[in-house]
């Protein structure tokens, strides 16, 4: 191995990258197929169910589309938001915590504000969620800018703090705890009043939630924001080199705090929409988007359209693996997770191989 070392490939050949992705995915599906076969399951049938998100032979196929969109929307918005902060080289891994505080705030509004019409209630919920999450992000950015604290550590710890807060709320049966279902002797999160539960546009049986439309609008908004506004330009300069930004007369601290506020507020919006469309909250309300979003943002190379497409693919993978496993009593969701992991790992490996190559040392010197 001493004779070889890794070299970044010169020139970005798109064709090569695509071939690598294709090979990576095929290899992972092949490994999965062998595993499935060894368990006595027809891999073609399994993959068919997986990639069609369980809609083949489904009595209520539209429900699966609804379920899929409910998984997609929070992941999409969170990935976009995380991409925003990563572009600035601000390592915000607190997506989970920011999501949770947003969901809790939305629930506070849902349970306490009554008598308002539905759109207004939901708007208030989303605003509360965005404000609380945004302030949490601002808090982290402030300490980063002011005292140069390590944002990775701070955001990571915030995840756990918020997780324990929501667990406490969900497990504490006390009179003050309006989050819980008053009718249940055991502590269990209550259901929001009707006015706080999101509806959508009915297309036949299919219910297109407003959150989907908001998410699509957000893609366009962030794309324009990053590409055509002064703010977007500032973010990319700060990401490239904060010294350059300073030299050009930009207020780096302000830009970092502002962007973190926007980024976290978007995650808060995702949380508000999720809480409202589920009609309740729980410890697992995030569906791990704070973590998955990091993968999505990087797989999408921080480009807005690519993040959008990647989050769709990852959601298909997540939702599809789980629904496919339903039909086969011998495999559980752990197997679905395993398969997902194999596929993701292969894509990342393919990405790595497409970017780097092994070269002999002498060659490297000459090059």
């Amino acid at each position, binding site marked *: 191995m001493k004779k070889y070392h890794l070299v970044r490939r010169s020139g970005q050949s798109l064709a090569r990258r695509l071939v690598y992705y294709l090979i990576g995915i095929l290899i992972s599906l092949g490994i999965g197929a062998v595993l499935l076969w060894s368990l006595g399951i027809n891999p073609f049938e399994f993959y068919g169910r997986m990639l069609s998100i369980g809609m083949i*032979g489904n009595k209520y196929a539209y429900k699966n589309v609804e379920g899929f969109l409910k998984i997609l929307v929070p992941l999409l918005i969170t990935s976009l938001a995380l991409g925003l902060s990563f572009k600035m080289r601000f390592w915000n891994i607190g997506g989970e915590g920011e999501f949770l505080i947003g969901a809790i705030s939305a629930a506070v509004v849902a349970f306490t504000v009554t008598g308002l019409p539905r759109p207004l209630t939901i708007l208030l919920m989303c605003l509360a969620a965005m404000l609380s999450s945004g302030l949490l992000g601002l808090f982290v950015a402030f300490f980063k800018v002011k005292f140069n604290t390590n944002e990775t550590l701070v955001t990571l710890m915030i995840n756990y703090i918020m997780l324990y807060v929501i667990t406490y709320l969900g497990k504490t049966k006390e009179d003050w705890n309006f989050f819980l279902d008053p009718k249940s002797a055991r502590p269990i999160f209550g259901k929001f009043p009707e006015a706080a539960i999101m509806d959508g546009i009915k297309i036949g049986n299919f219910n297109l939630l407003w959150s989907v439309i908001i998410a699509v609008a957000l893609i366009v908004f962030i794309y324009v924001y990053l590409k055509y506004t002064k703010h977007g330009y500032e973010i990319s300069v700060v990401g490239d080199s904060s010294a350059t930004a300073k030299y050009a007369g930009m207020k780096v601290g302000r830009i970092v705090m502002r962007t973190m506020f926007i980024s976290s507020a978007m995650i808060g919006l995702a949380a508000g929409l999720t809480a409202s469309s589920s009609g309740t909250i729980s410890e697992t309300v995030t569906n791990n988007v704070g973590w998955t979003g990091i993968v999505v943002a990087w797989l999408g190379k921080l480009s807005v359209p690519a993040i959008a497409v990647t989050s769709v693919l990852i959601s298909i993978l997540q939702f599809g693996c*789980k629904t496919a496993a339903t039909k086969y009593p011998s495999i559980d969701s752990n197997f679905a997770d395993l398969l997902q992991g194999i596929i993701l790992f292969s894509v990342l490996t393919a990405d790595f191989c497409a970017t780097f190559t092994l070269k002999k040392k002498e060659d490297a010197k000459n090059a």
Partner: protein
Amino acid sequence: MKKLVSLVLTAVFAVSCCISLSGCQAQTAPATSGATSKAEETTAGSKESESEAKPAAGDFKVGAIYINSQNDTSGYTFAHHKGITEGMKQVGLDPSKDLYIVDNVPEDDEKVKQAIDQLAGDGCNIIFGISFGYINAMNEKATEYPDIIFSHATGYMSNEKNFNNYFGRIYQARFLAGIAAGYKSLAIKNDNIGYVSAWGTEYAETCSGINGFALGARSVNPNAKIHVYEISTWGDQEKERQAAQVLIDTYKCGVIGQHCDSAQPQIVANEKGVFGCGYNSDMTAEAPKAHLCAAIWNWSAYYATAMKAAMTDKGSFMTTVGNYYQGLNAGLVDVSPLSSNCEPETAEAIKIAKDLMISGKWDVFSGVKLVFSGKAGAVAVEQKNDALKDNQGAEKVAAGGASVGDDVIQGSMNYYVEGVTQVN
């Protein structure tokens, strides 16, 4: 360029999707057409419906929502999965074909609803949810899918048409295990009995279990003291271990009962040379020198009943099965076979108590106490009128009074009976 990359990624997924779809149709259509004929009426048209019709049982599908995985080898989900698969075999269903499972579903309404949608879409006729927190989602979805029977373990909600709840009188089995513990405590001349419990008085389920076990032990050894250690989680092997160690080392307990997922308390008892009563499954294999007998569930008793009723006439499910709460009489709960560690009197005493409960002449939480006496071969029981008191001395049932209501046992019991103390 990055856009292009992602576009092609999509294309790759789409292509592999098509490949696998066509493969699926070519290879598996004949095999699945019988089972999914209902679903295909709406989606695939009449193409496959011409294949031979299967017997009615082939159309009946069972859906299950689990809190853990069906591949667990012990614990709560394991016990239910075993019950469902055995129950299916009893009514002529094939668990490898007719059973649809969504596993690892947390107590999160949104996730439970999605699981139900999936199972409904796959054509399930009855859906079992085994965890308490599924309650609101199941209640809501029962209205949305009136053709599907919804059945919820440990809950309290139901409707008149297609939604019931089910649970069992496990306290009866614990009373029997308590008898075994009581005889052991007499034999080793140590009145201290330990009990590792997931929760204490917060949940009627754990609370009634502790009380049942305590009354069983004290029916043999009136001086027995039950020390409860609460671990505040349904299952955590390390905490279960530590709790058992504390009970044995600090409180000098000679027998360890338990209400938690793993066999760790029994294993600790085995290591320390004391005795114990397990839960959920016969733990004699894990603790050969310590284990006496365990309070066990036999869920298939319920599952077979429920599936049979739903297959025969789902319209009358709520009158034939209804909200199901049975015990020793239905074989839903029992004690595991007594190990050779048990005292010789145990089997006789357990049989006497069991017969009394099965016949309905006596139940655990009443104003009548059982008092066992006599040596092996001549064990006698006296039914003594004696008030049921909590450990503060407050009377709950007057001497000679009838048993507390099922709603108390299942829902509002929040006191320990005489002889029980919680140590933490």
